[in-house]
C-alpha cells in the first residue's frame, strides 16, 4: 500500500493568467478524514476538480496511491469516489435507477451493492419517487451513495452536508467516521460548517486565496484552540514549581520559548496571579488565550492575528 493516498507537488491552476491555486504541496495519509477549510473562492473545489481529473493543472504534479502521469492517474481514479459541487443525478430516475446507472457505468457486477449503499445513506425506502422530487438533502445523500458505489479507498466530498437537516448531518457524520474506521477509507471533505467539520475531521487543510495556509491534525488544532493562561516569566523553573506545589496542577505545558500554558484555574485568574506573586515569581505576562475554530481559522487566513 502506498504511503500516501494523495500527494501534490507545487500544484498550480490558473485561469486566464489568474492563479486560483498556488503551489499547493500536500500529502494525505491513508485512513484519515481531512477537512478542507477555506472561504468561497479559496480554491477548495478547484483542488478537488484537479484530483478527480475534471480540470488539468497549469503546473505541478498530482500523485494518487503512489502513481503519477495521466494514464496512471486515470487508472488510480477507479479507487476514488467523489461528489464535487453537485451530485451526479439523472432527475427523471428513481434513487435505485440512478444507483444502477452508475453501477453499470463503473462495471460493478455485484447488484446487492445497490441496496447496500442506499441503506447506508438512509434512502432505502424511497421506492418509485423520482430524484427530481427529492429534497436537497436527499439528493446529497444519493450523491454520497453514488460516490460510495465502488467501495472507494479515497472519498472526496465537496460540501456534502449542504441541505441536510440536523439529523441528516449527524447521520452523514457518523457514516463518514464509520467508513474511515471500518474500511480504513481516506476522506477529503470540504465544508463551510466549521463546527461540523471539527466533529468529523481528523486533520485540517486550510486554504486561502489559492494558497495552502496550514495542514494540521486535530490534536494540533485543539492545542492551538484550547483556552489557557499564557504565563511568561524570567524564571520558568520556579514558575512550574509553584504551579505544582502551590496550585497542585500538572495541567500545563512549557513552550519552546519558555512561556507556560496553564489549562487549569481558567475562572480564577486572580488566584493564579496572587499565588505566583506571593511565592516570588515575577511574571511579565498573564493572559487568557485560546480560540474557537472559527476565530482560529480567521486568524490563519489573515484576519485578527492568533495570539
Amino acid at each position, binding site marked *: 500500500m502506498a504511503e500516501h493516498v494523495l500527494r501534490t507537488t507545487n500544484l498550480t491552476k490558473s485561469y486566464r493568467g489568474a492563479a486560483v491555486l498556488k503551489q499547493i504541496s500536500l500529502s494525505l495519509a491513508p485512513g484519515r478524514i481531512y477537512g478542507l477549510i477555506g472561504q468561497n473562492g479559496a480554491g477548495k473545489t478547484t483542488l478537488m*476538480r484537479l484530483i*478527480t*481529473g*475534471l*480540470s*488539468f493543472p497549469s503546473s505541478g504534479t498530482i500523485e494518487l496511491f503512489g502513481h503519477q502521469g495521466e494514464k496512471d492517474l*486515470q*487508472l*488510480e*481514479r*477507479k479507487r*476514488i*469516489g*467523489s461528489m*464535487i459541487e*453537485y*451530485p*451526479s*443525478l*439523472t*432527475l*427523471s*430516475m428513481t434513487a435505485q*435507477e440512478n444507483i*444502477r*446507472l*452508475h453501477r*453499470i*457505468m*463503473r*462495471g460493478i457486477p455485484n447488484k446487492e451493492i445497490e441496496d447496500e449503499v442506499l441503506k447506508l445513506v438512509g434512502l432505502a425506502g424511497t421506492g418509485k419517487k423520482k430524484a427530481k422530487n427529492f429534497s436537497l438533502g436527499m439528493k446529497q445523500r444519493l450523491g454520497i451513495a*453514488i460516490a460510495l458505489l*465502488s467501495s472507494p479507498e479515497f472519498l472526496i466530498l465537496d460540501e456534502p452536508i449542504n441541505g441536510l437537516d440536523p439529523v441528516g448531518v449527524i447521520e452523514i457524520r457518523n457514516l463518514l467516521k464509520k467508513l474511515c474506521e471500518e474500511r480504513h477509507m481516506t476522506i477529503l471533505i470540504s465544508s463551510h460548517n466549521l463546527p461540523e467539520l471539527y466533529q468529523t475531521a481528523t486533520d485540517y487543510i486550510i486554504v486561502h486565496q489559492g494558497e495552502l495556509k496550514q495542514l494540521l491534525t486535530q490534536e494540533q488544532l485543539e492545542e492551538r484552540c484550547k483556552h489557557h493562561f499564557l504565563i511568561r516569566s524570567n524564571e520558568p523553573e520556579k514558575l512550574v514549581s509553584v504551579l505544582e506545589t502551590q496550585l497542585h496542577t500538572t495541567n500545563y505545558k512549557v513552550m519552546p520559548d519558555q512561556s507556560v500554558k496553564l489549562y487549569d484555574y481558567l475562572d480564577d485568574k486572580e488566584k493564579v496571579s496572587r499565588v505566583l506573586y506571593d511565592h516570588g515569581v515575577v511574571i511579565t505576562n498573564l493572559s487568557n488565550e485560546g480560540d474557537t475554530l472559527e476565530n482560529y481559522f480567521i486568524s490563519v487566513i489573515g484576519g485578527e492575528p492568533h495570539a
Partner: protein
Amino acid sequence: MLNLIQADLYKLRKSAPIKVLLAITTISAIIMAVMAYLIPQGKIDPNLTGLGFMFSDVNVISILGAVMAAVLICGDFDSRTFHDAVASGSSRASIILGKTVVFCFSILCILLPYIITTGIVLGTGFKFSMGSVAVGFLNMMTTEAGKALTAAEMWKIASIILSITLVYIAQVSICIPLAFTLKKPVLVVAIYYGFSILMAQLGRLSESSKWFDRIFSCTPYGGNYTFLTLASETGEIIKALTISLIFIILMLIVTYSLFRKSEIK
C-alpha cells in the same frame, strides 16, 4: 467503454424524451406514407406536398437528430454523468467513443419507423408520390413503389436503405462535437437546423459549379447520397457508405481534439 455504452443504453431505455422522439418519427413516417399514397389518387390536394415533405425523413431527422444529441450529450453534462465518468477513471476517448456508438444507434432507432414504412410501401405494389419534393426514404418510396422487385433488387434496396441510414447518421454526427463543445441543447438544435438549411442551399450551388460539387460530394451533405434508388450504381452506394463512415470518424477526431483537454464544468 463497454460499461459506458451499457449504462447509456440503460439510460435510453428509461428515458422519456427518447420514447417521445420515437413516437414522433413513427407518426411522421405514417403521415408521410399516407399522404404520398393519397396525393397520386387525387384524394388530397397536390399543393399539400410541402406539408407531406415536412413529415419526411430528411426534414424530421434534421431536427430530431440534433435533439437526440442534445438529450444524449448535453443531458449528460446537465446530470453530471460525464463528471462522474471522468472522476471514476474513464478516459475522455472512451467517453466520446461510447457516446458516438450510442448516438448512432439511437439515430438508427428513430429512423426505424421510416425504414419499416419504406419496406411496407415497397411491398404493397401501390403508387406513391409527393410531387417533385422527395429525398431519402421518401424518394425511394415514390420512385420504386409499384414495381415488381426481383431478389437481387431487394438486396440492392436493403443496401440502399443501409447507405441512406448511414448518410443520415453521418450528417447529424456533426452534432457530436457541437454538443460536447457548446453543452447547451438549444444552441445545438438551433445551430444544426441552420446548418442543415445552409447545406441544402450549398447543394444547389454544387449544381452550377463542378469544382464545388467535387468538394461538396466528399461530405455526406453533397453528392446524390440521399437520392439513391435502384437506378443508382453500386459504386455510388459504396461511395455513400465510405464517405459517411469517414465523416463520422472525422467528427470523432474533431470531438476528441476539442474535449481532450477541456475543463468539465
